[in-house]
């Protein structure tokens, strides 16, 4: 038994500077994500494997001229954003809510806006790593991207906002197990029906009109327009993403339950 000097616990309360709290929280969130095997499978392994597999083998008859990797790389960048901002964030936040992490942090000096900012920071850090990984693999496979990097960044940021809103809405309203199941199901459905690896042209035109309004379709289509075809700024896709972002974040802010 160690003895403790008198005065050790004398109160000296105070919040740390908000910058330090933000940095610490972002670092912790990112560590938690990178330590989680299932999350890494979702964010790194699946997009990379799909990119390599579908580039090597013509499983899906891609439309248009050019090499398959030029069609696939933008779609898988979109998938990477969805996997982190939506699926991964929804599952992680759902379990944090269930384990009382959000509740306990609510009693700490960390303001709620700072917690959400840290979560966004964690998503962005992960996305940078994903984009780097996928770009290196795609370039090795002969990818030749075009277009304006600012348009790409705008698409990625708006896509992240749209998927984060939907992910947090799910995490903040459903039970953790339901979030786990639903987020994975949505991931697979949108992977197949969102223009990621299967061109939307393959779908009947009646369905296609609806599918084009999905956030994943807007993101993959917009990235493809810029990176494959050199478009300046895909305004329609950006508008679709902006609407999803406003609806998703608005609903999350309104309905999110912290406990």
């Amino acid at each position, binding site marked *: 038994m160690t003895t403790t000097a008198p005065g050790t616990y004398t109160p000296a309360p*105070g919040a740390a500077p908000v910058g330090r709290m933000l940095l610490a929280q972002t670092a912790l969130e990112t560590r*938690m994500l990178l330590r989680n095997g299932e999350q890494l499978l979702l964010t790194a392994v699946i997009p990379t494997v799909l990119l390599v597999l579908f580039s090597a083998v013509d499983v899906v008859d891609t439309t248009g001229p050019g090499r398959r990797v030029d069609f696939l790389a933008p779609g898988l960048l979109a998938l990477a954003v969805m996997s982190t901002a939506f699926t991964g964030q929804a599952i992680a936040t759902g379990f944090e809510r269930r384990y009382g992490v959000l509740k306990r942090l609510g009693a*700490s000096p960390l*303001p709620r806006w700072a917690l959400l900012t840290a979560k966004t920071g964690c998503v962005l850090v992960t996305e940078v790593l994903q984009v780097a990984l996928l770009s290196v693999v795609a370039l090795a496979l002969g990818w030749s991207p075009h277009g304006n990097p600012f348009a790409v960044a705008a698409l990625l940021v708006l896509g992240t906002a749209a998927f984060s809103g939907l992910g947090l809405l799910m995490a903040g309203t459903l039970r953790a197990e339901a979030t786990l199941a639903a987020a994975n199901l949505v991931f697979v459905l949108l992977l197949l029906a969102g223009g990621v690896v299967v061109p939307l042209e393959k779908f009947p035109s009646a369905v296609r009109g609806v599918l084009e309004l999905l956030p994943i379709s807007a993101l993959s289509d917009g990235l493809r327009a810029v990176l494959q075809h050199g478009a300046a700024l895909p305004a329609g896709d950006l508008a679709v993403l902006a609407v999803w972002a406003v609806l998703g974040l608005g609903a999350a802010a309104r309905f999110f339950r912290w*406990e």
Partner: protein
Amino acid sequence: MEAEPAVRVSGLVKRYGSKTAVDGLDLSVGRNTVTAVLGPNGAGKTTTVETCEGYRRPDAGTVRVLGMDPVADAARLRPRVGVMLQSGGVYPGARAVEMLRHTARLHAHPLDVDALVERLGLGSCGRTAYRRLSGGQQQRLALAMAVVGRPELVFLDEPTAGLDPQARHATWDLVRDLRSDGVTVVLTTHAMDEAEELADDVAIVDRGKVIAQGSPEELRRAGDGRPEQEALRFRGRAGLDLGALLKALPDGTAAAELTPGSYRVQGPLDPQLLATVAAWCAQVGVMPDRLTVERRTLEDVFLDLTGRDLRS
């Protein structure tokens, strides 16, 4: 001594749907004291504490913590108040020391993390993820997180539930040190011995109300007039003739041999009664072994007030 108590709850009402969890509760916690909120399961202890922590809005009544409103003044209060939830509160994949270090980083002048880790035996948790720690390790981590920011006031919700005796004593020692260094501690418990050991002040809560409050000694004394809860016990030869003793004892006192060689004298205890028993022992030539004075315990008070029926 400051005029404003650390916590002042008056007329608190909190309902969940049709169920009233807290029903007009009054509680005052003096600064630099340890106050135990004692009550059976479902009495409203956690709801009361969580209202003080700003997690719940009162349906009626007022709650003031360090003179402030826990909901409206949350941002100013949070750095000054330490919170230990009944369970959880840690990332399932986080390691104990990692989480404690993180919590320390959110505060301006935290405790020395390594010393706290050593004191509460958290070093042995190593690289194990929180969800795989034992219940006791999870409890000790939650306690450490509540105090690491050097708060003025800590709320501990069942801090020793499920702990082994060593960890229980380590927790008690820490609570005593907090108090002697000037921290106000509010803890909930249904362990009577914990309240008796630690608390300056005990508030017994039942069905959403405080039904008795005072020091453990005051509460025990409030039950005078229940002499059957006081007794002298001793061991001696089996089969002693109690006739002479019974004649010497005052009215309202009973003496019996419970099992061979084990005797109990029940009645209002005072020095005279002890002298009478001792004199009789000397007369019959018996050394009263293991002579003990049994007083009414907090458990007796508690059961008298809350009833002995099992709660659903």
